């Protein structure tokens, strides 16, 4: 069960021709796939395309009615290999994942696919996780398109353009026998807008047809001599075909060409920001009208030599706006201009920064410098936007605050079952000293941040244990600790980490954090999910899988909140005489998913008159001395500070917010770390049973009597 439900929104996928669709970019992508007669879709979740997978999951009924097969691929490599269905058959297929990390994983299959080429349209929708909001290394998908020769679409970030890119993308793919990549930046994935829908199309040639009348063509398989022919074919046939198709369909756009003897070339994805920059510089308006000629490359690979020459010839200079590095497009443009001996001066990364996100301010600065160089008169009389004006002395109050703002990185949620594992590791550190900790990708990577500060490296999804492979020597008794999430485990960690450790006789410790979902990507189901899932096989055991590849020392923890137990188990794993790989499967359900499941259920039970206990933690401000060691061992968002109610004390006291879900960690930490007696757990009992009432009515009068005695002692003292 994913974090966000699209059950309501997917109804929009049923819209017919002429109806107006309103919604998020990712939902529009799904609609465009259905309008294009797609036969199958695969992918692996991850921001910013997680919602695409969730939409498809929730649209199971609609997909079924159109004969579309949808898979949660085991990895991006699986997703890419799925496109093999389009090699021999006129089946349209699409896959999606987070890029560049997903594209890295997929690239083996993508390279094979691109070499042999395809018959049915093959579309690879990559969520370009670059710039603000990104959680991965800053690289470009562009390189993958170039190295395997797949066409790269980078459409203007509005719904009509994105939808058209998908429709034309399939056609381009089929016309050139080449897989096509569609790059969507983070904001484009989440952009809300509208477009006029078309009817959904049920594919004429179906998966059934393919399976019942199999076809093969050995010349499409990557094996010599075919592989050498593929390379020639790419250059001699597919490349020119792509140039022709893109020109004929007008996929790239010209605006105001002829208006000046200079112009701007831009990636389609940069369009809205460039238009805003021009508007603010007085060189354009909100409708996209421009006083500067624009060449909008909705296809960024290949570049269309004819169009580039046409745009540049007769111009004194052009500026290319290309986000990210290396500057592949600029280099390519230079080649095209040199070959044609066109003397137009090419600007790009000389006026714009080589690296980093191209925000409106960055682009505006670049365009300003460019126009100042070639037509300063265009800027006359226009008041420059504030961000381009010379910095003025800010008010003192503003300066003071600017230096005081703290960063607010993501962190473990309230009640997260992963947090206590790292609390336990902190406690082990106190006793056994520091260990080398190799991290993985997932929510658990937040352990590298305060308050835990645990973890030295992360080498990729599922590669937590592989990242510690070198630390395998008999010269020390000290062991390494590796972390892996259940998502990464099934993605590849079972072989790359566990199998590798068994084979190479690693003596390290692996903690598999099994919260029953790929939690960081939005709580999607995986093989070991504990939820019932009509369309998927779940409830498989990670421990069994680990034993299956030969690990002897395997321990299970089924309640990670048991900090003392977790601590002792980690200590055992790190100190046991037993040699060989050691795996701890730490199992507790992701609290976001659990709350979503349990909360409505509790409410319903309470309304039906059943006994329901809600647990919540609290801190007694009077006994809290404000040293905050409890927070340093937890970091829970619901465990925070408040002003000290005691006039004599300066330091704020700890407090538990109402968002507490009663996970129990506070109490466990207070015990395991011998902290302080300030924590209490309140059990709030709705519809108390007869036994509850009996106990209560027995204890209460006596307690009340003794409390009155205390009141008498304290009477008249308002401390």
């Amino acid at each position, binding site marked *: 069960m994913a974090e966000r439900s699209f059950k309501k929104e997917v109804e929009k996928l049923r819209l017919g021709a002429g109806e107006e669709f309103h919604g998020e970019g990712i939902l529009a992508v799904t609609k465009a796939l259905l309008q294009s007669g797609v036969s199958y879709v695969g992918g692996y979740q991850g921001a910013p395309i997680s919602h695409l997978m969730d939409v498809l999951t929730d649209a199971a009924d609609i997909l079924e009615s159109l004969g579309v097969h949808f898979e949660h691929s085991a990895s991006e490599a699986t997703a890419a290999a799925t496109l093999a269905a389009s090699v021999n058959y006129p089946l349209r297929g699409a896959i999606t994942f987070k890029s560049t990390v997903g594209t890295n994983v997929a690239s083996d299959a993508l390279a094979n696919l691109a070499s042999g080429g395809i018959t049915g349209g093959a579309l690879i929708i990559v969520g370009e996780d670059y710039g603000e*909001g990104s959680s991965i290394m800053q690289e470009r998908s562009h390189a993958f398109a170039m190295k395997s020769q797949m066409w790269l679409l980078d459409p203007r970030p509005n719904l009509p353009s994105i939808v058209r890119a998908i429709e034309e993308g399939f056609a381009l793919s089929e016309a050139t026998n080449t897989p096509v990549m569609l790059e969507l930046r983070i904001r484009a994935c989440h952009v809300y807008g509208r477009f006029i829908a078309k009817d959904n199309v049920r594919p004429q040639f179906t998966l059934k047809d393919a399976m019942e009348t199999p076809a093969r063509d050995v010349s499409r398989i990557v094996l010599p001599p075919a592989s050498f022919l593929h390379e020639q074919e790419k250059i001699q046939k597919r490349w020119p075909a792509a140039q022709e198709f893109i020109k004929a369909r007008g996929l790239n756009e010209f605006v*105001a060409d002829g208006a000046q003897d200079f112009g701007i070339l831009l990636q389609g994805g940069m369009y809205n920001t460039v238009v805003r920059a021009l508007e603010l510089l007085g060189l354009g308006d909100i409708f996209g009208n421009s006083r500067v000629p624009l060449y909008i490359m909705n296809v960024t690979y290949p570049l269309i030599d004819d169009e580039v020459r046409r745009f540049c010839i007769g111009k004194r200079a052009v500026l290319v706006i290309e986000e990210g590095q290396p500057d592949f497009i600029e280099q390519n443009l230079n080649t095209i201009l040199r070959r044609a001996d066109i003397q137009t001066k090419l600007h790009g990364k000389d006026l714009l920064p080589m690296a980093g996100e191209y925000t409106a301010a960055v682009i505006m600065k670049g365009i300003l410098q460019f126009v100042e160089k070639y037509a300063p008169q265009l800027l006359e009389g226009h008041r420059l936007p504030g961000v381009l004006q010379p910095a003025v002395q800010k*008010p003192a109050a503003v300066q003071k605050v600017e230096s005081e703002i703290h960063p607010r990185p993501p962190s473990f949620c309230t009640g997260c079952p992963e947090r206590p594992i790292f609390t336990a590791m902190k406690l082990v550190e106190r006793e056994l000293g520091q260990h080398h900790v190799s991290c993985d990708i997932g929510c658990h990577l937040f352990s590298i941040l305060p308050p835990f500060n645990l973890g030295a490296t992360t080498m990729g999804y599922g590669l937590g244990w592989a990242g510690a492979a070198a630390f395998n020597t008999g010269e020390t008794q000290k062991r390494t600790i590796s972390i892996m999430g259940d998502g990464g485990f099934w993605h590849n960690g079972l072989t790359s980490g566990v199998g590798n450790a068994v084979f190479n006789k690693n003596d390290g410790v692996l903690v598999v954090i099994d919260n029953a979902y790929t939690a960081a990507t939005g709580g999607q189901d995986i093989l070991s999910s504990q939820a019932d899932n009509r369309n998927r096989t779940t409830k498989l055991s990670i421990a069994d899988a680990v034993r299956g590849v030969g690990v002897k020392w395997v321990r299970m923890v089924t309640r990670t909140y048991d900090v003392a137990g977790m601590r002792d188990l980690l200590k055992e794993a790190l100190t046991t005489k037993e040699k060989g790989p050691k795996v701890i499967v730490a199992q507790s359900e992701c609290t976001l998913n659990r709350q979503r499941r349990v909360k409505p259920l509790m409410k319903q039970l309470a309304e039906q008159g059943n006994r329901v206990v809600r647990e919540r933690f609290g801190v007694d401000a009077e006994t809290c001395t404000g040293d905050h060691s409890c927070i340093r061992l937890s970091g829970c968002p619901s465990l925070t500070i408040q002003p000290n109610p005691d006039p004599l004390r300066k330091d704020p006291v700890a407090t538990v917010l109402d968002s507490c879900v009663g996970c129990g960690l506070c109490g466990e930490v207070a015990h395991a770390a011998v902290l302080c007696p300030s924590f209490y757990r309140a059990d709030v009992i709705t519809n108390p049973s007869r036994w509850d009432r009996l106990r209560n009515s027995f204890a209460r009068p006596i307690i009340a009597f003794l409390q009155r005695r205390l009141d008498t002692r304290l009477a008249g003292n308002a401390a």
Partner: protein
Amino acid sequence: MDANVTTESASVISANVKAISIAILAMGGEGGGVLADWLVDVAEHAGYYAQSTSVPGVAQRTGATIYYVELFPEIVSDSGGKEPVLGLMPVPGEVDVVVASELMEAGRAIQRGLVTPDRTILIASEHRVYSMSERTAIADERVDSQSLLEAGNAAAKRFVHCDFARLANEKGSVISASLFGALAASGGLPFTREQFANAIRGGGVGVESSLAAFEAGYAAASQPAAIDHAAVSPPAAARPRRLEDLIARATHEFPAAGHEFILAGVRRLVDYQDERYARQYLDWLAPIHDADAQYGTGDFLLLAETARYLALWMTYEDAARVADLKIRRTRFERVRQEVRARPDQIVQINEFLHPSVDEITDILPARFSRFILRTKPLKRLVERFTGKGRVVQTTSLAGFLMLYALASMRHLRRQSLRFERECKLIREWLLQLPSLAAEDYRLAVETAECPRLIKGYGETHAHGMQNYIAVMSVLGRLRGKPNAADAVRRLREAALKDESGKILKQTLQEVNA
């Protein structure tokens, strides 16, 4: 890729037609997305193009994130024959409305340049969600809310602020609803209150409570000045008859500058032990007062700080004190209130206690304690009782009686081992203050503040005490040096900087050098 943008000649530029720009800064899970969705709904119903986007990523896991919305009237667009091209990210200096779900997020918007005095209406909740570094500090490293408010006033064209979290809470809703009300009232957007409210009605989930919070937010933002300064002053403490003598003595013998802490101290000591103990407190303060009067600067800083820390130290937290605080009627009531229990619900309170052997022997009469600690089998017996953490249900009869009995050990406190130990340390500290004041008044004040290092329980307390002793041990060497006061302050701050004690160690070396 629509064909209609492809034009071959320079187009006519429609200057001065701008989109309305709204940035919403929130933390993951706060409903920033819901707020943006409502806004889109309002705009579309009112005949506007609405485009919203966000960069949630992993920021949804409690990190800071930003939602961005642009609006443009369809009627203007129709007359131009083209759809507007709306921005995907806020441009510094070009934002009409900034909504911040929390005060430091408002500060972040200012830091990013999104709030400018010529244009931006800033709507922010005054409450704080403390950052990790504010929360994990050993002492107090909170960013001052007042300076955040002042920055808001300085940076924005108009600054609408109020505790919108509290408003929403009171109506059983979430902050997005009350902020939406404030947005409606801010006058920054061309829509009516009713149009805003309709968006909530259309949402379908929790409509009643959301609307109530919306109205509360609307009302608050309509009269920000009133909300601004309606600071709730605490009710004047009643003068308890029982303490009249003590209070009279305190106010008579000590200058007004010290009254706040001294009176609070007196009350605390009576609460902790008895009137006799409070009299001892005043006796101990007398020489400090004399020294301050003689060598001080007239503001009685030494007296005030000594009064503060002496009261806190004399009321050190032992097991009896903790039990005493846990079993009170007022505490039971407070817990019920804090967990929002309804009258028909039963609330059971469970304490997480983990007393060590020392903490048990601490509260027993000294001779008895020493006997236990010397006699191995006895010590082991106590260890068995204390070895593991215990959960005691104070609302059960057995749990209550146990803590009641423990609280009664208060009567034996003056004979206890811990009392002996603490009194010795307190006297050592107090005794040197007058002579320090005579030599170097500032040094005396800094020294008076050193007991701040001693806090917590068990290991944390032992660690704090070690730090305190380490700082006090260099005092002798510092005396007479011109920068002695600063050195003590630095040492104290260093001790509160990190748990490992590295920074203190390093600072000690520097000071000793």
